[in-house]
């Protein structure tokens, strides 16, 4: 039995988890989902986002306690090394270094995108994987299409050239005055709308496996907003908030439905085509946007291959996926030295761990 503590702080979230044998979740704690205020009375700042240095102790201690293990019973410490925001990554990394030094246990610096891939291995009940598989990672910060030939073997087929898919959801959500995060709210509104009301562009409909969502966002904006008149434009000051106004005669449900259709169409089309071209045995979708029902449904319709996605709580950033990925890296012999540095722009491919 191999027990690994995972720590994730690549961007907004602070998370910790204990995973056994890369499959069984002993605990899975995410800072924004626990009441740190109540527990640590007043110390915790109001804005929880990116307050990793404040949250990390409470989050890891809770993960260790909930899993019913002690730090000394761990077999390894895993932490997200990148990609992400340097100041955020550094908190998880240095906390992990402290724990690794004191327990004298191996330390593994894990790629965040690889974590998303291994969220699939945490699905219960688990079904064995027959490689190669086609992996689509779609989240607020990433849109990656990969061919996974084996554990730790990835060929990057393509990715976004501008905005990430999840970012497009959030920004269109903001345009439609929907609450943050945009994804779930657009999905809810879209269910009551007509997907054919607007013919939004499907960008990069070419032979490449790259994506582009910035033009789609602009097209939605053009449809739904009133451009500020010359008069208001003149009075606008530098530094003032600039917000386009939502047209009053527009159906938010229809826009949401049509927008969602455009995003999912292009994701599904390219993933299915890549799966076929590379002879994949199945398709994995991971990351926050993989929770989207239209995406899941279309993917199943578009391909005869089995389609897998992680349970909802593992779609968004979490540390269980980092510990799960670390399990396979641990088996492959990865050990990261205490001097390791952050990798804020770390791509996932066959060279990812080359220098380690």
């Amino acid at each position: 039995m191999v027990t690994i503590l995972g720590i994730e702080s690549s961007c907004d979230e602070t998370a910790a988890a204990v995973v056994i044998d890369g499959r069984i979740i002993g605990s899975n704690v995410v800072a924004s989902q626990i009441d740190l205020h109540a527990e640590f009375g007043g110390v915790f700042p109001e804005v929880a986002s990116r307050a990793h240095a404040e949250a990390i102790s409470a989050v890891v201690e809770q993960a260790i306690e909930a899993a019913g293990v002690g730090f000394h019973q761990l077999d390894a410490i895993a932490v997200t090394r990148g990609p992400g925001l340097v100041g955020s990554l550094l908190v998880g990394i240095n906390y992990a270094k402290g724990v690794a030094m004191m327990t004298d246990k191996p330390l593994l610096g894990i790629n965040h995108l690889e974590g998303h891939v291994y969220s699939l291995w945490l699905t219960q009940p688990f079904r064995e994987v027959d490689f190669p598989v086609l992996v689509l990672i779609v989240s607020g910060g990433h849109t990656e299409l990969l061919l996974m030939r084996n554990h730790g073997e990835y060929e990057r087929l393509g990715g976004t050239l501008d905005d990430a898919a999840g970012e497009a959801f959030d920004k269109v959500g903001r345009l439609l005055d929907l609450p943050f995060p945009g994804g779930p709210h657009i999905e809810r509104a879209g269910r009551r709308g007509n997907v054919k009301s607007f013919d939004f562009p499907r960008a990069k409909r070419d032979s490449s496996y790259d994506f582009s969502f910035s033009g789609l966002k602009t097209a939605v904006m053009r449809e739904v907003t009133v451009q500020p008149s010359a008069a208001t434009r003149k009075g606008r000051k530098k530094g003032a908030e600039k917000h386009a106004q939502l047209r009053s005669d527009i159906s938010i449900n229809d826009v949401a439905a049509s927008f969602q259709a455009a995003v999912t169409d292009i994701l599904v089309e390219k993933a299915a085509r890549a799966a076929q071209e590379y002879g994949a045995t199945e398709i994995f979708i991971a990351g926050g946007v993989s929770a989207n029902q239209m995406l899941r449904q279309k993917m199943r319709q578009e391909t005869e291959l089995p389609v897998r996605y992680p349970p909802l709580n593992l779609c968004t950033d979490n540390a269980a996926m980092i510990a799960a990925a670390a399990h396979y890296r641990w088996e492959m012999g990865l050990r990261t030295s205490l001097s390791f540095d952050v990798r804020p722009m770390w791509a996932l491919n066959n060279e990812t761990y080359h220098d380690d």
Partner: protein
Amino acid sequence: MPILLEGELDIITHSAAQSARFGARLGKLLQPSDIICLSGDMGTGKTIFATGIGHGWGAKIALTSPTYNLVHPHKHDADKTILYHLDCYRLQNADDTDSIGLDDILDSDSIAIIEWAERIDEALPHDRLWVDMRVIEDMRRSFRFQAEGERYQQLIDDFRAAIFGIK
């Protein structure tokens, strides 16, 4: 009335590709410590322009939107210099700049391109190149470049020479 105001430059582009090409011209002229602030509504093409700047400067990996991760540190293809591509869309105000380590970035001698700079104006140094971007219609965009400080006056002059062939 002078057509070319001291320290200012107006251009209009007719496509995203053209915006990126202008960006590349500007990117070629950048020096260590330069700060480029991009300001404008959603959909004005800030990221496209930034991608062009990064291309012209010589970024190893093409620039993509940093909205989610807030800061993308880009390495130069040939030397060890760094270009920080920042996006303040998700920041509340200038106080929130702690959480992206803005001071550490501005204290380094790296280049910084800052999208949604108007959201954190108070936290930015006075000397910088400010670019106001607007949608005119469909694909047409207007860019107004404003120099604050000597270095950026020079940068605008060089940029003007690069795109119009005149000083």
